[in-house]
C-alpha cells in the first residue's frame, strides 16, 4: 500500500491555510481560458496537490473542492462550469474557470472619496451579523481601488437592527430563489396557517420588515409581515423559481405607500403629552383647538399596538375598526394587570 504510506508521511507537513488554498484556486481558475479539469485542479493547485493521491480515491479532496467552489461563488466570484462538447453529461470531463471579464470590477465603476465615505457610513448601519459582514466585504473590495475616503462622517451613528428571526433565512432564500414554507399568523384568524411562498423581495417599510412573494396556496402574490411569521422558515427541497423583475422591491414599497395613504385615522391627543408631541410630528392635518390630529397608517393592527402604548394620552375618533382595535388592546392589558379583588 504505497499510497497510504506516502499519505502518512505527509501528515507531518504543515497544513496549508484555507485562505491560501482558496487564493491559489482563484488564481488558477482566472488564469485558464479553456478551464481546468477537476483532476488537474486537485493534482496541481496548492492546498489540494499536497494531499492528492494519484493512485487512489480522492473523495475527501473532492468534497473539499465542492465546498470551496460554493464558498467562492458566495463571494460573488463568477466560477463557471463548462461541459465538454465531446462528452456532455460526463462529470469527469467538466472544466472550471473564472472568466476575467466577469470577475473584474467594470472600469466605469469608480468612486470619489466622498462616495466612499458615504459607503462607509452605509456599512455601519447594519448591526445584524450577516448584513454587516456582507457590507464589510464590499468595502474591502472597494478599498482595492486605492481611494482614501474623506475623514469619517463625524457626529453620526445610524443603526438599523433586524429583530425578526425570519429575516436571515428569507434573505438566503431570496438569493437562491428557493421556495420556502412557514407558518403565518394573520390578525383576525384564530391560528397560524402554513404558507408556501416564492420569496421575491424583502423590504423595510414604516420600521417593519415585509416579505413579498408568490403564495402557492392562493396562486397570487402576497405581502407578509416578518413579525407575524411563527417558527422556522424552511426551504422546500427542489423548488426554485425564476428571477423576479429587478425593480420589484421598489414597486412593493410604492404599493405599501399607497396602502398607507389610503388609511386615515383621526386621533384626539392630550395637550402637553408625549402623544401630542410625537404623533403630532407625523400629522398630515391638525386642529389645535380641538386637539385632534389626522395621520396615515399602513396596518391597523400594528398602528393599534403603537397607539395602545400611549394609554390615556390618545383616543381614536375614527375609523371604527382602529378604535375597536385600540380599545380591545387596552382592555387586554388592563385585564392582565388588574389584581383580583373584584371577583
Amino acid at each position, binding site marked *: 500500500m504505497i499510497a497510504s504510506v506516502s499519505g502518512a508521511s505527509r501528515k507531518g507537513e504543515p497544513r496549508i491555510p484555507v485562505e491560501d488554498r482558496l487564493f491559489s484556486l482563484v488564481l488558477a481558475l482566472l488564469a485558464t481560458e479553456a478551464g481546468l479539469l477537476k483532476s488537474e485542479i486537485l493534482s496541481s493547485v496548492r492546498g489540494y496537490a499536497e494531499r492528492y493521491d494519484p493512485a487512489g480515491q480522492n473523495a475527501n479532496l473532492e468534497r473539499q473542492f465542492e465546498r470551496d467552489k460554493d464558498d467562492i461563488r458566495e463571494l460573488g466570484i463568477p466560477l463557471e462550469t463548462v461541459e465538454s462538447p465531446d462528452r456532455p453529461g460526463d462529470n469527469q470531463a467538466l472544466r472550471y474557470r473564472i472568466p476575467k471579464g466577469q470577475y473584474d470590477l467594470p472600469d466605469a465603476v469608480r468612486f470619489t472619496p466622498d462616495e466612499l465615505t458615504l459607503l462607509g457610513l452605509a456599512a455601519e448601519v447594519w448591526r445584524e451579523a450577516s448584513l454587516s459582514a456582507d457590507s464589510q466585504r464590499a468595502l474591502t473590495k472597494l478599498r482595492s481601488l486605492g481611494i482614501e475616503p474623506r475623514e469619517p462622517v463625524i457626529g453620526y451613528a445610524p443603526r438599523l437592527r433586524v429583530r425578526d428571526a425570519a429575516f436571515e433565512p428569507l434573505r438566503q432564500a431570496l*438569493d437562491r430563489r428557493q421556495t420556502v414554507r412557514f407558518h403565518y399568523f394573520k390578525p383576525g384568524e384564530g391560528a397560524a396557517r402554513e404558507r408556501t411562498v416564492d420569496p421575491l*423581495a424583502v423590504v423595510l417599510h414604516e420600521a417593519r420588515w415585509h416579505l413579498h412573494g408568490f403564495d402557492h396556496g392562493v396562486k397570487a402574490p402576497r405581502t407578509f409581515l416578518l413579525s407575524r411569521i411563527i417558527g422556522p422558515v424552511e426551504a422546500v427541497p427542489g423548488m426554485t423559481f425564476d428571477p423576479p423583475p429587478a425593480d420589484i422591491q421598489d414597486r412593493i414599497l410604492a404599493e405599501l405607500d399607497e396602502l398607507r395613504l389610503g388609511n386615515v385615522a383621526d386621533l384626539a391627543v392630550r395637550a402637553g403629552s*408625549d402623544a401630542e408631541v410625537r404623533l403630532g410630528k407625523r400629522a398630515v392635518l391638525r386642529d389645535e383647538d380641538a386637539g385632534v390630529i389626522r395621520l396615515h397608517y399602513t396596518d391597523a393592527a400594528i398602528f393599534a399596538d403603537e397607539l395602545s402604548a400611549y394609554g390615556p394620552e390618545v383616543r381614536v375618533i375614527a375609523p371604527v375598526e382602529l378604535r375597536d382595535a385600540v380599545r380591545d388592546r387596552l382592555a387586554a392589558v388592563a385585564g392582565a394587570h388588574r389584581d383580583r379583588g373584584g371577583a
Partner: protein
Amino acid sequence: MARRPTPLKAPDKLVFLLSFVPYLLEQRVVDVSEAAKHFGMSEEQIRDAVRLIATSGLPGSTGTYQPNDLFDIDWDSFEEDDVIVIVHHVAIDDAPRLSAREAAALIAGLQYLSALPENAGSASLASLMGKLTAGASAAPSRLAVAETEADESLTPIREAVAEGRQIEFDYLNARGEAGRRRADPLRIISQDADWYLQAYCHTREDVRNFRVDRMSDLLLTEEPIGDHSQVDVPDTLFQGSDTDLDVIVDVSPTALPLLADYLADSRSREVDGRLRVTLRLAHVHGLKRLVAGLPGLVTVVAPAEARAAVAEWAEGGLAGYDDATGQDR
C-alpha cells in the same frame, strides 16, 4: 467608524487577498503602515498577507509552481524598509466585483441614510446605488429600505453638531416632565426609525440622550459648545443606573427579541408556555408604555407597584372609550 483589526474568517481573508493585490499594483510602492491603515488591519496581518502573496501563483503548464508563474516582491525593500513593491504578478490586476448580497447590503444601508437631511432626495445617493448595481456580479438581492421623511428638527441639529454650536429646545422627557433645555450637541444616533441626539445637557450637567421626536421649538445659538473631549459618549442608547427598576415579566417567546434592550440578564425560565425574565428600566413610565405597546405579549408579574402602574395606564386609556359613541368631550 471604528475599524478595529479583527481576526478574519477564511472567505474574508480571501476577499482581502484578492483586493490587496490590485491595491498594491495600483500604488506600486506602499508602506506596510499605510496599507494597514487603508484596509483597517494590523501591520502584522498585512505582512502575513504579503508573504502569502509573494509565494503564491499558478501551477503552470507542468502542474508545478515555477518561479515565473509566481508573484514576486522586492524582498529587500520589504524586509529592510517595511515597504511593499510587487515586481511580478500573475492572474489578477483588477478589483473584484461585489456579490449580489454585498451590493444589496450597501444599497439598503444607503437607502436608510436617505433619512439624513443632507441626503434627502439626493441625486448623488441614487447615482451611487447605480454604481453598486453595475459593480455587482449578479443583480443585487431584492432588498430595500423605504425612504423616510426626516424629522424636521434633524436639519438644525445636524448643523449644530457639524459646526459645534449650542442649541436650545423644549423637551418632554419619558416621565412626562416638560422644560426648556440648553445643550452641547455631540452626536446623532439612530436606532431603526428612532433618532436621538447625544448631547451635554447644561441643565443636568451630564451627557444625555434626547429623542429627536420629543424635541420642539429648537433654536440654534451662536454659542460654541464646550470641550467634551474628556467625556465618554456612550456607544449605546441604554445605560444602566443605580436607580433602575427591576421588573419581572412573562413574555411570549416570539416577543422576546423586542425586549432585548431591557433585559437585566440572560436568565429566563418557562412558565405556562411563556418566558419569565427580568427587565431593567429607568422608571415605571417607560415600563407602562412598553407593556401597553405589546398588548397580550407581555405581562408584568412583580413588583405590585409596576403591575398597578400598567393597569392604571391601560384603564386610563380605556376610560376614553366609555361612551360608546365617543362623544365624551
